[in-house]
């Protein structure tokens, strides 16, 4: 079992746990879970007045606080992770006291779940030592004992890919090293939107050595696409874009490529296509798809890179030409909804409407003939943005340099601007997606069912 914690949450958690060096400190983590992982979306840092006793070797919490935590988990069907610190220790090793109380707590959950009064949710323990080393374990209900678990951030994915040994990668290994190359082979990436941007990004990622792709696009190739889709030719007209793109990747990557071509548009009903991924790339021109991608990134704690271009031409006069790349690290930086430009609610609503509803809007005259018609699109601009995005992805995955949260490109003046600190953009505390009561880490759960009174208090009208 692995426990996935947003990078920002983990840093905050460790700070809280190691704030005092003379006594142990406690916290609860909550999150949705599957067979293989727990997605942590909520952190309760135990307030000082909620300790019954606290020393350098032991913490005991007040009974009513524990009851509240269990109620919270019960209502939301969340896994519970009991976290504490050994601030004096160099290595995070559970003590005999931890073993005894941990087992008592976990068997209580097991017993209550058998009695039907508490859901059978995973019960885990995390220990943080003064050296910041971390140990994690999750109770195995069948064996009635704890099994070792790993704790990681969304970007710290680990699978079992071998280091790519092909000499094809020699020149780039000089930049990001063998480990960087292995991480690229390891990455599972979903690309949504296979237009002029998505196709170019696919090709570059395949050439960088990424092997595991999920390609999502419900469109077929049209003659008007051929001005900007590399690897697409006239004989592909009418074919599914996802299929042609998959073929092209396989030509680049050979038999080691694992490519899933999904000839469907991203919809709420198929959002789980994005669940088991390490990175989401959205190269879409629709706000509805952006809304869903942003939601999936938050729900499943998967980093997301949004790439977009735009050209505004007023007759023969081009007034704007450019694009941007936005990197969403769920729970750490801002999500797409947090940006001041956010997600246009009306365009998103239009994109997510059923065909029947769109037809009604057309009949009533709310959709002009041009309202959904495509904007100008050219390969030079797409090429710049796709390359900038691939560049950021290579940094993100191989870690040869820090990744920027926001890169904007002005194609008219050839200007690039970057923001590299999440704080500069500001994660909105009350964001509908990543804020209080938001969707972070709730996985496939339809809806979060319960929040604490104090969480709700933070949501009351501010009227300002």
């Amino acid at each position, binding site marked *: 079992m692995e426990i996935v914690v947003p990078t920002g949450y983990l840093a905050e958690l460790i700070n809280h746990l190691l704030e005092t060096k003379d006594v142990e400190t406690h916290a609860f983590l909550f999150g949705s879970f599957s067979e293989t992982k727990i997605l942590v979306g909520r952190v309760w840092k135990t307030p000082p007045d909620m300790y019954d006793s606290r020393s350098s070797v032991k913490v005991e919490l007040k009974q009513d606080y524990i009851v509240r935590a269990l109620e919270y988990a019960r209502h939301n069907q969340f896994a519970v992770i009991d976290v504490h610190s050994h601030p004096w220790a160099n290595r995070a090793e559970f003590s005999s006291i931890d073993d005894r109380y941990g087992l008592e707590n976990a068997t209580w959950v097991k017993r209550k779940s058998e009695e039907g009064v508490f859901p059978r949710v995973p019960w885990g323990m995390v220990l943080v030592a003064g050296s910041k080393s971390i140990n994690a374990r999750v109770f195995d209900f069948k064996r009635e004992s704890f099994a070792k678990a790993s704790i990681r951030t969304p970007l710290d994915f680990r699978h079992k890919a071998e280091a790519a040994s092909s000499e094809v990668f020699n020149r780039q290994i000089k930049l990001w090293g063998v480990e960087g190359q292995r991480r690229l082979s390891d990455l599972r990436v979903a690309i949504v939107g296979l237009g002029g941007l998505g196709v170019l990004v696919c090709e570059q990622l395949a050439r960088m050595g990424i092997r595991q792709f999920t390609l999502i696009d419900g469109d077929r190739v049209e003659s008007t696409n051929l001005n900007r889709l590399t690897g697409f030719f006239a004989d592909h007209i009418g074919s599914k874009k996802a299929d042609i793109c998959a073929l092209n990747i396989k030509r680049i990557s050979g038999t080691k490529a694992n490519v899933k071509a999904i000839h469907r548009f991203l919809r*709420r009903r198929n959002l789980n296509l994005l669940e088991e991924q390490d990175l989401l790339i959205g190269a879409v021109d629709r706000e509805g798809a952006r*809304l869903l991608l942003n939601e999936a990134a938050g729900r499943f704690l998967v980093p997301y890179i949004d790439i977009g271009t735009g050209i505004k031409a007023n007759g023969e006069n081009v007034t704007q030409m450019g694009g941007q790349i936005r990197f969403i690290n769920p729970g750490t930086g801002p999500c797409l*909804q947090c940006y001041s430009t*956010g*997600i246009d*609610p*009306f365009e*998103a*609503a*239009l994109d*997510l*409407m*059923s065909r*029947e*509803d769109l037809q*009604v*809007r057309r*009949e*009533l*005259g*709310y959709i002009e003939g041009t309202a959904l018609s495509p904007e100008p699109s050219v390969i030079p601009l797409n090429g710049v943005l796709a390359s900038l995005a691939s560049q950021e992805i290579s940094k993100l995955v191989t870690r040869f340099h820090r990744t920027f949260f926001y890169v904007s490109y002005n194609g008219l003046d050839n200007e690039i601007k970057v923001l590299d600190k999440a704080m500069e953009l500001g994660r*909105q505390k*009350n*964001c*509908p*997606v990543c*804020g*209080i*009561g*938001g*969707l972070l880490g709730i996985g496939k759960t*339809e*809806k*979060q*069912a*319960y*929040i604490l009174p104090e*969480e*709700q208090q933070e*949501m*009351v*009208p*501010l*009227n300002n």
Partner: protein
Amino acid sequence: MARIISTEQKDIPDYSSIRDIKIQQNIPGNRDIVEISSQGVQRRTDSESTRPGGIYVDVPRYIRGVQNVAIMMQEIAMLKMMLPDEINIIANPPDYTFVLLENYLLGQGYQPSPSNILIKIPPEYPQIPPGLNPTYGIYVVGGLKRNGQALQCVKDQYHWDCVHNPSEMKQKGWAWWCFARLESWDPYRDNLFKAIVILTETLRNPEQQRFG
């Protein structure tokens, strides 16, 4: 003495203009003030005056979480606080796919009135607003009359016995009230109360429908 509900309830002078009340209470000039009475809710312009015993609301603009139970619980609590007691507010926890207002006064000349209003909540709410399309619409009862005349299906407003009202809603007796031209929606702040205020105003002044 009139009262205003903003961040807290306060007494305000009678016969004062809404503009003066805003200044006195530090309420930004661009914000709506709504009067709540047994007649339902009515937006008051800056030049109108408070009346003795009147209850006025600085229309709440929420900063809040997401389309989930927490949001809906909060919104329903707000509606219960803001709307007159005569109006029953019914929702369907834990899904909260709709909110039903029973016994709502539609305005002078309407039959039946008081009547019911239904709001279907889009899955992406509040990232997208309600009412934009027939599937996740705002509905009034079908066969509505005004001054004895059956309401006609009109663009931007009432859709009952026409192809634009979804058949399943018609079968249940609901007519879609079209908000397709809603022009502003702030996912962080706007809420169901805004939709109710706009609907109520439109019913009272069908010629002056406002979409903001």
